[in-house]
């Protein structure tokens, strides 16, 4: 046991300072207000304070820090997307992830594992080749590999998948990684807090006041705040915030479920995704298998998990890894995914001056946390979209210029 931990345990006082300050009252006004203290909101606050010198900022959270989709995802980080806009954006994110632990002075357990997207049909293999070529064009390490390579890298896999969906190949993405998701929110939160940003938990936004087509302030459960800039980063609650300002978007909400097994000896190094079997799985440093599947099949604003989900996902896991039959499932949970029709996010400036959107993060938001913070802080500080997010703007739908990223979704939703 480290000496420091022992001393902490025996102490009557608690010498470790809290990670965030608690503020008794809201101020009457801020230079910017960020709604949502998840990874995206806190990262935006962090870079606003660090890179743009905007420190008079409040982050409002109706629950607690990192309690939404930041703490509910399956922690997979990758940049093997399909569109040039997506590949460039997520690749920048993977770059930012590399030195984040050092930046925060907090161990994120960032672990590069390699990422396999399995193909069980020739049609799927075609998409893998397409993604590999787009990736390579932008300098991202992805390649189409055959079934022998998959078997060599994952010796425990049943390559025939119980003879009903034999694996014909895969997209192999060497930079694929996992990280400890709670620590990402804490790291960004602490960094922002130390630079003067105020984080207010249990503070719900109930309305947004506008004046002459501009944002004037935010109504909250703890009173009114005047501010010229509001960033909305609330994932599954986005439509409710957008109703307050009368903005229409294609965002619709489906629950997304996940589960985790009891810890077992390390046997799975890479991250495995199978679109056809609707599975993604990785093994954490503690030995647990973290597993996810496709969206629940209909709109719902409830994070309740179901037995159907565990049964279905377990059956598909056993197709690939039959020896897991005796392993128990420890926990299951769900989050609210804000889906878009083209599987790309909706980011940047909106028709309402001073209202900025970071939404439509559906099932793919965690990996983008650092780059969202970077690009949205730039957008909020300057009032103009960052060049990396120009493919994701809200007006792409009225221009019929979608950024079709469905082929790069982890599973066939």
């Amino acid at each position, binding site marked *: 046991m480290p000496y420091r931990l022992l001393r902490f345990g025996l102490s009557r006082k608690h010498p470790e300072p809290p990670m965030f300050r608690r503020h008794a009252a809201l101020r009457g006004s801020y230079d910017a207000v960020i709604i949502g203290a998840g990874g995206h909101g806190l990262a935006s606050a962090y870079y606003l304070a660090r890179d743009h010198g905007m420190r008079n900022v409040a982050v409002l959270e109706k629950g607690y820090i990192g309690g939404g989709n930041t703490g509910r995802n399956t922690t997979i980080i990758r940049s093997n997307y399909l569109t040039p806009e997506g590949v460039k954006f997520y690749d920048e994110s993977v770059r930012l992830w590399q030195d984040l632990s050092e930046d925060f002075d907090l161990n994120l357990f960032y672990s590069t594992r390699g990422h396999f997207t399995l193909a069980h049909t020739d049609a799927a293999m075609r998409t893998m080749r397409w993604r590999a070529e787009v990736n390579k064009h932008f300098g991202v390490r992805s390649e189409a590999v055959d079934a022998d390579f998959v078997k060599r890298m994952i010796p425990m896999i049943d390559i025939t998948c119980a003879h009903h969906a034999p694996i014909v190949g895969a997209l192999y993405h060497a930079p694929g990684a996992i990280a400890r998701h709670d620590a990402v929110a804490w790291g960004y939160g602490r960094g922002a807090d130390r630079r003067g940003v105020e984080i207010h938990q249990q503070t719900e936004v109930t309305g947004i006041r506008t004046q002459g087509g501009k944002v004037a302030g935010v109504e909250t459960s703890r009173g009114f705040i005047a501010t010229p800039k509001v960033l909305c980063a609330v994932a599954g609650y*986005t*439509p409710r915030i957008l109703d307050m300002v009368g903005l229409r978007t*294609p*965002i*619709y909400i489906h629950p997304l479920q996940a589960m985790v097994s009891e810890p077992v000896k390390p046997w799975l190094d890479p991250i495995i995704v199978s679109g056809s079997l609707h599975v993604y799985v990785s093994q954490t440093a503690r030995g647990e298998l973290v597993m996810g599947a496709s969206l629940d099949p209909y709109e719902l604003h*409830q994070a309740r998990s179901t037995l*159907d989900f565990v049964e279905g996902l377990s059956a598909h896991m056993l197709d690939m890894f039959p020896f897991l039959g005796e392993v128990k499932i420890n926990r299951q949970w769900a989050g609210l995914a*804000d889906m878009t*029709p083209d599987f790309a996010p909706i980011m940047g400036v909106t028709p309402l001056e001073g209202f900025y959107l970071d939404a439509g993060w559906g099932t793919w938001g965690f990996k983008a946390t650092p780059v969202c913070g970077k690009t949205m802080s730039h957008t909020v500080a300057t009032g103009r979209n960052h060049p990396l997010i120009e493919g994701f703007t809200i007006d792409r739908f009225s221009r019929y210029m979608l950024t079709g990223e469905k082929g790069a979704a982890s599973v066939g939703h």
Partner: protein
Amino acid sequence: MKILVCPLNGPRPVSEFAYGGSVRASPDPGSCTDAEWSDYVFNRAGSPGIKREWWCHIASGYWFIVERDTLRDVVLATFPADAARKGFIPPVPAP
């Protein structure tokens, strides 16, 4: 397992059904503007509430209408697809 009452087949497990999105009235594609059409094609009322939706019983290929609270996940009523035309339920207002 959740049960959905199909107007044709009676109570069946929800896994036998496919969700088809909200019941919405289309603008006239011949006379509406591009902006009205893209609003109809893409934009959705994403907030929770009591919504009228298309559902299909897959085994029998039967489409019908469900009135459901999307916050509480409670089905309030199910109707045959022509219920609005026959005047059993009020029609969806035009956009």
